[in-house]
């Protein structure tokens, strides 16, 4: 198992980049709070079984930025079922991150990502320490932008196996911001995949989401 103690080995270069990157043309303070709705499809696969569950999770997220430092949190909760009429199983997705946005178009983030989801062998709870990189670009001025965010787990633990194989994901979408009204909306697509080696199981969470909130970048 990869120990949490190894986090500094991965985190140090990231922190160095964050600290050393100059401040971009940003307002001193950015913040946002909002609601997120996510249509999920959870695919779990073992050498023997492949199951797919569909469901919906709902929750909230918040973020605050002071100059180039960022702090964020997200909590989503819902359920998924394998087929109509089957009992639903609980899905929880929570994350906390600290990060830096040295420029308008680039962010680095790191923090724990907690998940509770139904696996083949039971309910799995994972804690992934992830590093993320996020790129943003303007489509129509500052109002309409697109982004891609990719992440990878550096270490973590899982309740069922106590060993984590890997964790990675990607998210992309578009952001609409109405600065005068301080309204933010976001919609996109996301894939989050993790695996445990023993017993071998790969779970893939695929989601379409929409988020609405208030704040400014």
């Amino acid at each position, binding site marked *: 198992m990869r120990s949490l103690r190894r986090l500094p080995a991965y985190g140090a270069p990231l922190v160095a980049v964050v600290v050393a990157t100059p401040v971009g043309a940003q307002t001193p303070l950015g913040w946002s709070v909002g609601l997120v709705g996510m249509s999920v*499809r959870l*695919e779990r*696969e073992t050498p023997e079984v492949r199951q*797919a569950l569909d469901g919906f999770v709902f929750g909230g997220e918040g973020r605050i930025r002071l100059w180039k430092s960022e702090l964020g949190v997200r909590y989503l909760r819902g359920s998924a079922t394998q087929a109509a009429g089957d009992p639903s199983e609980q899905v929880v997705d929570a994350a906390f991150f600290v990060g830096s946005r040295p420029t308008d178009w680039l962010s680095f983030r790191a923090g724990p990502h907690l998940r509770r989801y139904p696996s083949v062998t039971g309910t799995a709870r994972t804690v992934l320490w992830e590093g993320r990189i996020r790129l943003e*670009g*303007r*489509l*129509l*001025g500052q109002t*309409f*932008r*697109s*982004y*891609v965010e*990719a992440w990878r787990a550096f270490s973590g633990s899982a309740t069922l196996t106590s060993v984590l194989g890997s964790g*990675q*994901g*990607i998210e*992309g*979408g*578009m952001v609409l911001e109405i600065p005068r009204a301080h309204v933010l909306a976001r*919609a*996109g*697509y996301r*894939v989050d*995949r993790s695996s445990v080696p023993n017993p071998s199981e*790969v779970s*893939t969470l*695929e989601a*379409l989401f929409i988020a609405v909130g208030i704040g400014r970048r």
Partner: protein
Amino acid sequence: MVGALAPLGGARAQEDPFQRGLQAYADLDFDAAVRYLRDGLAAESADLLTPAERARFMTYLAAAEVFRGNRDLAVAVARRLMVRQPDYRPDELTFPPQVTEVFTAVRLEMDAVQDLASRGFRAFADLDFAAATQLLRTALASDSAGQFVGAERARVVAHIGAAEVYRGSGDSAVAALRQLAVLAPDYRFDALTFPPQVTELFAAVRRQTVAVDQMARRGVEAYGELDFEVATWLLRRALASGGAEQVGPQERARLLTYVAAAEFYRGRQDSALATLRRLTFLAPDYRIDELVFPPDVTALLATARRQADAAADLVRRGRVASGNRDYGNAVSLLRQALSPAVAEQLQPEQLAEALAYLGAAETLRGARNSGAAVFRALAIREPRYRVDDQAFPPQVTQVARSARTQVFAVRVALPRAAAFRLGQGELPVSLQASAPHEVTAEVLHRDGRPVRTLYVGMLADSLVLRWDGRDSSGFLVWDGRDPTGVVTAPTGYQVVVTSRSVAGQVVRRVHVPLELDAYPQDTLPHPATPHDSLYLPTRLERGPGLEALVTGVIGGAAIALLPSAMAQGSELSTARFAVGGAISVAGIVGLVARFPGRSLRGNIRSNEAIREEWRTRVAAIEQENATRASEPYVMIHAGEPVVREVGR
């Protein structure tokens, strides 16, 4: 104390005037000490002294002067020292109390002067301009030590000039600003403290000062080029101008000498002599530079002085004879003094004195009618002259008073130079009558055409009239341009005051010529064109459109392609293609919306608004400049009054 001086000696002491002075001081030879120390301080090598050394030697010099009994000279030395080193205190162990007391007195005097100036500035700030001018003028007059020098003196003079402007004392304001123009030609009035009319008046005065200075210089140059006619004309014009007051008596005397010399070379000896006579009045101790001017001019000046002295001596002897009751001799002497050839050697006050004593002598020797005639002549010449009750017996003063009441004469006084904007300022014309009578005061063209009647009526004692530069129809007599719009110079005018007898007959007129010099007001500069940085781009650059396209295409491709690579083996939905496609389409839309080169109407409107605002400001300034151009600044110079008897 003297004995406390360190022993001095050796060869060096024999060479160094300071050491020799100190040695002489120690030997109580104060005359020698003063001589050596003054020589040392006057030498060029004195510039090498440190402040402490200079202070030490000057203190010894002051002390030596005290011991010689010349306290005034000691005070002068102390002033010179303390202007340079205001905090200097002589060592009380080295110098006796009578020396330190001199420095204390000077310090108190300087503090008092500084206090006067501070109070003057405060009064100015409190808008009490009468007190400000009085305090600041007193400060300057009391500045025996010369502590107000350079910028500090300019500041004091500037405040006096501004206060006089506020008080409406145009003549005094012009005089103060003229002094400032000489003292600090580049002086700039703080726009927050001083009103625009002060700045404008100073600009006009400065221009005139420069003009007078240039005229005088060109006159001297013409003299050097042996063009004596031009030299005379230029120098007389410079001296006649009010701006000539800017130069001190020495400089005026020098210019008068050039005039006299030029007149001499033109063969006009009488004119040269008359000029030198003025010079003797102006600077009695003036010495002609014999390296510059020919000996004939020096000889002429000596003649003028001799004649002036002789004329003054005649008056003096007549006065003495009158005092000795030798009235016959007094009349004889005074009539000699008043003969035209001699009278022109006398100054106005000497002339009035001679007439008063002649009238008194005639009266006292029984020729009452003759005495009355003399007093009438005196009243015509000096309408305000009053025979001294203390100096003459009642029968004389009675005759003099009676004679004066029979004479209808007016003394007309105008400021020698007044500056104002035509239509906004006024020229004061002061009338003083010898006795109540009807007068008419008018402004006429130089050729006699009427311009404006200022006053018609009884003048009992005195009256101040004001002329605002308008004619009888209310139009400005000169607005800078002729009817065709061509810029013209103002013409000459005159103030004429006509005195009438009780029967209404014109008995005499006083003419005062007026010279007008016009100066256009300073115009405002156009505002700078808006800086390029203020303008927004009017066409889209390549950046935003390309950024949208790249962002859309790369972002869309990443969402469409990377998930399958990241989640190999999983059966992903096609939703990623929809999202990726949407992002790509948004990128293309962004490119179209911000296609490079496309006009930005909002920015174009914003830029046009900036230009329009600038054009509006330019138009406002052009209008203001046109207004200023149509209201030129005028300086009026009043000449010497000329009395013309009528009906004789």
